[in-house]
């Protein structure tokens, strides 16, 4: 081989060796970068998976044949199956109505569809109402679609409860109006009862004097026929009986009217007392009002005992709100006593008490009703939670009580309950400064 050619070959060989070295170095460098990118990708994928798994909404990926490619944990929960079991299933099996209506539109337009309400077929359960949004997966060669599914069950329950609450609010307003309208007739009925009472007393005194005059006349030789006619009238009118019973009847009338007046006043006070202004509150007065208004709830199921502290200091607060809180507690107590079957046994008991403990004013309501299961003790103060049958409770009573006590009055609410034995709820308020 000529020397010149050899030299050329040697130079090419040397270049090739150096190129191999350079490529090896480049390969190592690229491998390291690839590893780093791979790890970043893994982390990112794991994070995405975790996000999808804890999402409150269900996420579903379907192919063009409308078969499930992937679903997150929440969607599997809604359907009541494992995610793996959903893979390959037709969308029509999970959401039958979807295929008929919105889907053809999505396929044709290739545009996202938002908040379409359908039902999910849940294994072994009622259909779950859901809100469905669908979007074509951008730049996906397989032409897949992403479905986001939000469970509407809880919202539906809230809507039902709100409707019920709204109805009750209207009834409350109506009751306040009726109470206001009753005020005037109750007032003149009371006045007239007093007037009639006074008049009756005068008439009876007159009748008594008349009797004496008749007897004196008879002794003095007045026409016996006339005397006998008056005596017959006296016997017919049963004046003695009237004299005996009229004061009792009047007393009962006044008692009934006093009770009506008190109920009407209590309802009016609870509805409009201070226009929402904070004022000095007589806690015992508020308690008595609440007891009067709730009488119809408890009188058939329990004996109500009160133990009201006679020297309670005034506290600053909102009397109408406190009245509302106590009314809720009393109604709940009555319902709990009834639920425990105490009405039949005749030993239902509700005790309401007030007192002072240190610098606190304390109000307690205790009953010997059905009590609260330990697992529900935390939930009963949540809005719209109720254990009562549909239509009987709004689930707002105790959440309102807690809001009134803790948020409006800076107080504290304590619950002590034993299933089958009863419940005691104690409200603690700071005294007025």
């Amino acid at each position, binding site marked *: 081989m000529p020397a*010149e*050619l050899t*030299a*050329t*070959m040697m*130079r*090419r060989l*040397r*270049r*090739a060796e*150096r*190129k191999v070295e*350079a*490529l090896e170095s*480049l390969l190592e460098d690229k491998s390291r970068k690839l590893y780093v990118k791979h790890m970043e990708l893994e982390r990112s994928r794991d994070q995405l998976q975790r996000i999808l798994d804890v999402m409150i909404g269900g996420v579903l990926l379907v192919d063009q044949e409308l078969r499930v490619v992937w679903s997150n944990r929440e969607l599997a929960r809604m359907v009541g199956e494992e995610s793996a079991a959903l893979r390959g299933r037709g969308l029509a099996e999970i959401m039958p109505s979807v295929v008929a209506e919105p889907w053809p539109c999505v396929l044709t337009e290739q545009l996202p569809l938002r908040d379409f309400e359908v039902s999910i077929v849940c294994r072994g359960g009622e259909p779950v109402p859901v809100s469905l949004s669908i979007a074509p997966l951008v730049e996906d060669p397989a032409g897949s679609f992403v479905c986001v599914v939000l469970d509407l069950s809880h919202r539906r329950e809230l809507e039902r409860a709100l409707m019920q609450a709204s109805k009750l609010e209207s009834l409350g307003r109506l009751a306040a109006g009726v109470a206001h309208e009753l005020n005037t007739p109750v007032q003149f009925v009371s006045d007239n009862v007093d007037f009639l009472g006074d008049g009756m007393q005068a008439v009876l005194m007159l009748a008594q004097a008349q009797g004496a005059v008749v007897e004196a006349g008879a002794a003095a030789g007045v026409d016996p026929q006339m005397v006998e006619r008056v005596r017959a009238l006296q016997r017919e009118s049963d004046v003695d009986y009237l004299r005996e019973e009229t004061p009792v009847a009047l007393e009962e009338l006044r008692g009934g009217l006093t009770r009506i007046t008190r109920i009407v006043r209590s309802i009016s006070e609870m509805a409009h007392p201070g226009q929402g202004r904070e004022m000095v509150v007589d806690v015992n007065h508020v308690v008595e009002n609440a007891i009067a208004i709730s009488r119809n709830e408890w009188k058939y199921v329990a004996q109500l005992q009160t133990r009201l502290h006679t020297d309670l200091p005034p506290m600053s607060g909102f009397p109408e709100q406190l009245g509302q809180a106590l009314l809720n507690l009393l109604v709940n107590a009555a319902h709990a006593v009834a639920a425990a079957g105490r009405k039949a046994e005749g030993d239902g008991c509700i005790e309401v008490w007030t007192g002072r403990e240190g610098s606190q004013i304390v109000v307690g309501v205790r009953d010997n009703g059905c009590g609260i299961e330990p697992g529900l003790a935390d939930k009963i103060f949540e809005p719209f939670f109720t254990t009562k049958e549909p239509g009987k409770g709004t689930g707002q009573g105790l959440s309102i009580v807690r809001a009134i006590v803790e948020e409006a009055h800076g107080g504290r609410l304590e619950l002590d309950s034993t299933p089958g034995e009863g419940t005691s709820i104690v409200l603690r308020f700071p005294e007025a400064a």
Partner: protein
Amino acid sequence: MKGVVFNIFEEFVRDSFGAQTYEALLDAAGVPPTEPFVGPSTYPDETMTTLVVTASKMLNTEIPVLLRKFGAALFYGLHAKAPGFAEAHHDARSFLLCVEGVVHMEVRKLYPDAYVPTFEYTTPSEDTLGITYRSKRRMCHLMEGLLDGMADYFGTTIQQHQTQCMHQGGETCEFVIQFNAA
């Protein structure tokens, strides 16, 4: 400029003019003879310019002519590295129309530091294509060769001419390409 272009240039010179000519070219251009060009690495544009100018003198060939010949070889050299781009098309026109949006885009993605020219297309008729070529390297003659190589690969005849050239004061080079020219 990426090392792959230098490597294809080496092959072009060796295949066309012999291995010893390339070694002589390296010596004449002052390029270290034992330093290789590695495909994915980047080297100064000036090195390629020096090699082309020196080769033009050594081979007694005008630079535009040399670049056009190299361009045709460059098309096949690049096609060998990434055959999928051209194989996805049945004709030269459709391939050419996707160079800017696909080929150049992929090069930018794979090598963010790579500099590639930009193409703007006009389609005056079904068998005619206008391309506005922009590049700081002003290698429109290399572009001519690439078009020759492409036409050869697709087995078609094209007629190309520049209505404007950066080497003659134009801001861009304007190519008009007629396909299936008689």
